[in-house]
């Protein structure tokens, strides 16, 4: 029965041992219950899928553990509905009646979308914080520091710059946001580090940008693979250096079928896409060096009580 002790490869420390079969049963039952409960069950459904994915992902032979529960997501969502979405919907509906004239309408819409964009930024960051605080490995928890609004301000600003520059700000945006996220990511009492830089991305980006139209957007995958390689290579945790061995072809084989799976199952099959992503990461994510595990102590920071309401409210998906 002992499987892994001999099989652990220090260079490829991740392995994913989840089979498609049990996941299939899980997805079918989840879909039925979600439909029967008019969508309310989706929070518990998502939690069950995460537990499956987490416990089947192993690092150095030990499984991850997802300790979130569905009611946390449910309550988080309800809070957001009453505090954010309903007031926002009412303001928008009233504005459609109250605001006369094109100029007023345009100004309102711009302000409205800025607010939405800001809330999306907050939502993404908070959802990540929730997931990390519910992630345990070897009994030690992960966490995320940094305020959601700090991230959201950057997110909004960079997204606007991205639009103004016809996309040329994309590498800078992605590097900076990655840096912000990583520098605030903790496992136990130690945080991840991102070595500054990433300027080299611009050469690849320039080529891909000009090829965007002739290749019908496919050149973006080439850039994205390069970006993921660079960002991962500059990421470290306690003397451990990461490496993602991804190429444009591998990325295409990941994201295109994933998109098709999700679209053709109207979202119900998204767990299969997540399963493929987990397997992808286990295969291509490598690490060099091993941290001194006895020096990594339990995370004692505060953890959010409820999760992901905002991200769910805006249908931001994620795992």
């Amino acid at each position, binding site marked *: *029965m*002992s*499987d*892994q002790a001999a099989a652990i490869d220090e260079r490829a420390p991740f392995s994913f*041992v*989840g*089979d498609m079969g049990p996941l299939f049963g899980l997805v079918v039952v989840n879909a039925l219950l979600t439909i029967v409960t*008019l*969508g309310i069950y989706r929070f518990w459904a998502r939690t069950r899928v995460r*537990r499956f994915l987490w*416990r*089947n992902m192993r690092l150095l032979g*030990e*499984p991850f*553990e997802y*300790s*979130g*529960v569905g*009611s*946390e997501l*449910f*309550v988080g969502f*309800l809070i957001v*509905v*009453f505090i954010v*979405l*309903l007031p926002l*919907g*009412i303001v928008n*509906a009233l504005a459609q*009646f109250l605001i006369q004239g094109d100029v007023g309408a345009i100004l309102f819409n711009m302000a409205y979308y800025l607010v939405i964009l800001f809330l999306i930024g907050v939502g993404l960051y908070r959802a990540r914080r929730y997931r990390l605080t519910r992630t345990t*490995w*070897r*009994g*030690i928890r992960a966490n995320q520091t940094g305020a959601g609004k700090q991230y959201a301000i950057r997110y909004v600003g960079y997204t606007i710059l991205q639009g103004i520059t016809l996309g040329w700000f994309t590498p800078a945006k992605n590097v900076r946001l990655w840096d912000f996220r990583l520098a605030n990511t903790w*496992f*136990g009492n130690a945080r991840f580090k991102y070595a500054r830089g990433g300027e080299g991305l611009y050469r690849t980006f320039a080529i891909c940008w000009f090829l965007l139209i002739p290749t019908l957007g496919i050149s973006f995958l080439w850039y994205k693979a390069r970006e993921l390689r660079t960002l991962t290579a500059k990421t470290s945790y306690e003397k451990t250096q990461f490496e993602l061995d991804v190429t444009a072809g591998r990325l295409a084989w990941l994201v295109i079928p994933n998109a098709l799976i999700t679209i053709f199952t109207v979202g119900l099959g998204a767990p299969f896409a997540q399963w493929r992503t987990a397997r992808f990461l286990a295969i291509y994510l490598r690490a060099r060096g091993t*941290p001194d*595990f*006895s*020096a*990594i*102590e*339990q995370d004692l920071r505060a953890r959010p009580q409820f999760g992901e309401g905002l991200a769910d409210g805006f249908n931001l998906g994620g795992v």
Partner: protein
Amino acid sequence: MDTSATYFDGQAAAAHTVTVETTQSGLAFVLPSGTEISWPYNDLRLIDKPDIYGRFVLTSLSQREARLSISDDTWLAFLDTRAPDLRSNDVRARARGLWVIATATLVVSAAVAVVLLVPGLSIVIGRAIPPSWVEQIGEDVVAQFAAGERWCTGTGGTNAVAQMVRPLEEAGSPDFHLIVRVLDSDAINAFAAPGGRIVIFRGLIDAAESADEVAGVLAHEIAHVIHRHPTEATIRVLGSWIFFRAVLGDSAGSAGTLLIAFAHSRENEVQADRTALTLLRETGIGSQGMAAFFERLTDVEVESGADRIPSFLTTHPPTGERLRAIEAARVQPTTVRPALTAAEWKDLKAICDV
């Protein structure tokens, strides 16, 4: 019965290889440092079910953050016989049950509030919205209904409509100036939109045998305008749509909205009938036309089966109860006069001719 396992103390990430023994009361093992640890069976909890290689992880209520990782799933079968609460999930987030109940109550009470309060609120809001906005909304609603259809603008017919509307409008004095139009559509239908907009379908004029019958339907629609039913219904639908979509998401949200939209239509119809009868009496037209028309539509429904039910009936079900109410209230005016002269009625019949 011993097994090798990996122990994590929950304080640091270091792994400790240990040999776990089963005793009378629980599991016991010794750390390399010499510390002896024992986990009573009653405290044992399974973190997750075993993976395909049989690896599973245990914790103990006495050391909630510590983990014991075992890759021998024959052990699990053994533990199931000894540790009664092994598969209890009480080690996960606790005391959430209260929160779920509290929020479920919140949602239910909010939904009830919407069902009970939105109609009342929509009346208040309906009166607060400036008339010019209501008229704008009404134009939009009418435009939606009329999309792809032609407005009938025959001169004689338009005149006849004005002749029919004027006394009814004077008798009822609605808040909005009435704008009554005829749509070139086969449907036997008529409706009132916000802001005093009324649309009569040509099919309804075709189906009527006298001007009094059309006047009966018109009086009913004018009564809706007098009571501001269209405005309130629009606000009600919009309000519930925002609420249900936010809480339930798209499809279920639309179903909830429909529920609200129709929950109050019945009493509105009864109220509109009553007011229509008053209008018809005050204008000297009388209610025979209205009663005759509803009765004949009901016959059409019985004879022709479901696929040809006139659409006016789907929103205005002529229940026996309703017909009886119209019959009972058939108080004739002292001097009966037809709604239109014979010539005007002929013009109205031809309003869509080009």
